[in-house]
């Protein structure tokens, strides 16, 4: 069963193209990541799916419901968390949950029971009476997720949920997401610009300048980069790059402050470079290709350098 289906989605802000012919499908129960630099179109995609922006071209369906025609039914099927938390900081945790429940037509006993369930699920029962403004970033995020689970949505849309979280809280967040997928079989679409996070998704797509440039499980995407990945840091890299290309017939990419080489037999190349060019680099790293390498291979830029906003 397909939870989210996007076909040839287009979106422009005036002249600027934010989404260009984007298509993908998310099967039910999957954690799907949308990876890309800021300004790559992630947020636009997120806002279109969460019914906050109108569809300009193409189609989008959530749980078989057309986002354009059936916005209200889609709103009932989705739970949304925003990059900037939508909590009312002057209300307590439980008050925030109650307001949310009322907005979805829940009240009375049903609402109380649901509040109990989601607070239990996210481990915030003992904070029920605390004002939201007193909570740490990680706890706020948990309340935010509890809020969007109240009406038992089938699809969660999360915009950069780890913004402002320290590594510990980020780890917790993902444990919660895994638990949700396992226990409630919800489908989760998550936007991120963090590689470590993208790696945790079942599948992901990479959005750059409004185009979907790759889609698949993280491992499959990594295979786009053949073999191993070598990273060289040091002074006077352009010259080293020229020598490497001329003398070893390698394809060298200069990215930011380092050189990047893709090679089938990384370890052999590593020793070759280490002996032949000793002293001309400060650091030489060999690794399996990361998603960052995939992104660099596809766009010629690092994810951080790709910012257009």
């Amino acid at each position, binding site marked *: 069963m397909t939870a989210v289906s996007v076909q040839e989605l287009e979106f422009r802000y005036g002249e600027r193209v934010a989404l260009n012919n984007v298509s993908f499908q998310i099967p039910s129960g999957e954690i799907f990541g949308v990876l890309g630099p800021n300004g790559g179109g992630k947020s636009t995609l997120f806002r279109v799916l969460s019914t906050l922006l109108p569809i300009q071209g193409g189609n989008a369906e959530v749980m078989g419901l057309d986002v354009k025609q059936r916005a209200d039914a889609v709103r009932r099927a989705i739970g949304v968390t925003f990059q900037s938390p*939508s909590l009312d900081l002057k209300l307590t945790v439980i008050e925030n949950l109650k*307001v949310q429940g009322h907005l979805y037509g829940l009240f009375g006993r049903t609402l109380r029971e649901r509040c109990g369930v989601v607070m239990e699920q996210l481990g915030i029962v003992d904070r029920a009476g605390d004002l939201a403004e007193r909570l740490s970033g990680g706890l706020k995020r948990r309340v935010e997720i509890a809020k969007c689970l109240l009406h038992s949505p089938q699809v969660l849309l999360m915009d950069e949920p780890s913004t402002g979280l320290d590594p510990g809280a980020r780890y917790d967040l993902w444990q919660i997401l895994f638990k949700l997928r396992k226990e409630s079989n919800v489908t989760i679409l998550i936007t991120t610009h963090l590689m470590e996070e993208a790696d945790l998704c079942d599948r992901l797509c990479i959005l750059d300048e409004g185009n979907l440039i790759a889609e698949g499980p993280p491992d499959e995407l990594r295979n786009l980069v053949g073999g191993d990945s070598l990273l060289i840091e040091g002074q006077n890299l352009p010259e080293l790059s020229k020598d490497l290309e001329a003398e070893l017939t390698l394809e060298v990419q200069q990215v930011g402050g380092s050189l990047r080489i893709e090679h089938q037999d990384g370890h052999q190349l590593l020793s070759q470079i280490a002996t032949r060019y000793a002293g001309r680099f400060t650091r030489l790293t060999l690794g399996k290709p990361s998603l960052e390498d995939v992104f660099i291979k596809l766009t010629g830029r690092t994810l951080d350098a790709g910012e257009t906003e």
Partner: protein
Amino acid sequence: MSSADPPIIAGPNTDLAAPKSALWTSIYTLAVREVTRFLRQRSRLVGAIGQPLVFWILFGAGLAGSFAMPGADAENGLSFQEYFLPGIAVLIVLFTSIFSSISVIQDRNEGFMQGVLVAPVPRSSIVLGKVLGGTALALFQAMLFLLLAPLLQFVHLAPQMEFNYPVLVILKALFFLFWISLGLTALGYLFAWKIDSVQGYHGVMSIVLLPMWLLSGAFFPGSGSTWMTWVMRANPLTYGVAGLRKTLVADPQRLPEFPPEWLCYVVTIGFALVCLFVDVWMTRRDPAVAS
């Protein structure tokens, strides 16, 4: 459109997400939220009721000798503070409505509004919840002022005036204050929806809302100047202030005849309904919000 909705495809606990209309629960909850927030920010109470109270006492004392109600002889005429009383009640309403409009801007900037916009609530309930919550606050504070301020005469901060209102007068005053509050809060929402910063809203406040209050007969009758008379007659708030004043002053001889009471009702209620209607229309039309 809800009648044509097929049930949502089976998922976890779908029965809980049954597509009941969330109109009333969401109006209720958004209105209650306004009140709760207000009660947690004491400074708002001071701002909305303290300043008008100080104005009333200082202007009342300062202008006591130089104010003469047009068309009334000196001994029968209203004291300035008595004249100014309903004007200050309306100023309290205005301040409260400005505070709640500013919260529309804050809700949007802080992200709370996004959460409401992705919920399956009719867009009209967003307007009604916000405006009714603000109205309740304005009504409560203004009424509190009207009942308590005349008691200041016993500590010589106000001249002698009526303070023991019959129940009917209180009910009528509540009625007028309700519609004035609704109108001003709805008007504030209208500006706030279009303005994205609190600073920008201050501009509207000083060139639209405060002059509107000044030219409503709240502060001075303005009957000495022809052009001002007409500006005031064109101001919808004039009729609310006049209606409230006619309610509070028992003897109609002490007040000018214009505007007649029926006109006060018509304009005050009409203005509130028009503003509310425009709010709903504008909120629905917003492309980022369209349902």
